[in-house]
């Protein structure tokens, strides 16, 4: 009985994936030929990752989470989209299930980054570029306060990511995570 349930479940999952089969027009297998070197700034992350994260609240308390990130080439290899999802949280808040689309803009030699988090109705737009060995994205919170999101310690199979917001004249880290390739 249990194996039948599993078979039915697997069939349903495959059916739902198959029902989306017209959508792979989104997906691409490699970077677009023009600006290929530039595209690899985020292209280097394509693949599957797991992470451990910490959130630092304004009141000094902290929360921890674990999750997964999947990066893929999209739009003929001119953009990179990820899906970012939490699998565990130390509190009872809803688990994030969000996505980021980033594309290289040759006119400004920078990246336009859009992050969406439907559970909290959040859309963030940032502009990113390589600075030294880090990737720095700048934007603002919905209240207008400046934020920057930074990929640092980038290795083939690991990276550190942290988010800072400007409080007065000081940048304060409000979130960070350590990711490892699966």
């Amino acid at each position, binding site marked *: 009985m249990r194996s039948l349930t599993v078979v039915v479940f697997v069939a349903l999952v495959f059916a739902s994936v198959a029902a989306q089969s017209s959508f792979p027009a989104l*997906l691409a297998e490699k970077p677009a030929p023009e600006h290929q070197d530039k595209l690899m700034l985020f292209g280097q992350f394509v693949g599957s990752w797991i992470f451990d994260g910490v959130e630092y609240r304004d009141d000094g308390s902290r929360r921890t989470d674990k999750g997964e990130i999947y990066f893929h080439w999209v739009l003929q290899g001119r953009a990179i989209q990820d899906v970012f999802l939490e699998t565990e949280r130390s509190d009872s808040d809803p688990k994030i299930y969000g*996505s980021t689309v980033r594309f290289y803009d040759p006119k400004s030699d920078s990246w336009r980054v859009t992050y969406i988090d*439907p559970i909290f109705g959040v859309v963030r737009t940032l502009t990113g570029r390589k600075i030294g060995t880090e990737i720095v994205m700048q934007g603002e919170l919905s209240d207008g306060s400046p934020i920057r999101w930074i990929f640092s310690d980038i290795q083939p199979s690991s990276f550190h990511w942290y988010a800072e917001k400007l409080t007065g004249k000081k940048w304060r880290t409000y979130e960070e995570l350590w990711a490892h390739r699966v």
Partner: protein
Amino acid sequence: MTTIEALKKEEGFHAVLAAPGRSPEILESADAYGWLIGSWELDILHYGVDVSARHLKGEVHFAWVLEGRAVQDVWIMPPRFERTGPPDKTCNMYGTTLRVWDASLQAWRVTWINGVTGNRDELIGRWSGKDVVQIGTHANGTPIRWIFSEITPNSFRWTGEALQPDGTTWKLEGEFCARRLRS
């Protein structure tokens, strides 16, 4: 490894992005985009200028994503089978729209990204009578409104307009007629 983990590994990105349907958190009355799920072919009537004489075609695909709390699409013009050689960027789309339900607004936050030209536009969308109306701005701040109208199960018209510097005239920027493709 559980079955789900095995499937995730197998399908990777697409399996975690795609969702089988609308999240129960979004009421049917608020669902402005679920009717679009699937694939459509486009007749391009207007794109910057009147192009109806050129009989340009396009394609667009819609899917539920992110646990059914967002609708993502891909707009392609010319269609994939006609995309050979270097792109003519004046009449070219290979872009995606992310639409997120925002409960605090009781509306959808819409971001359109055209990977070919690097354009990014942001709008707020909702039902308005029998139409779905998106109001927002181009990246340079120009007010825009995009409208799905003449909606039937198998067809719709899409028009995009931008407010002119006089502050009163809306100028047509894009007009597409869509027919549903059988899956």
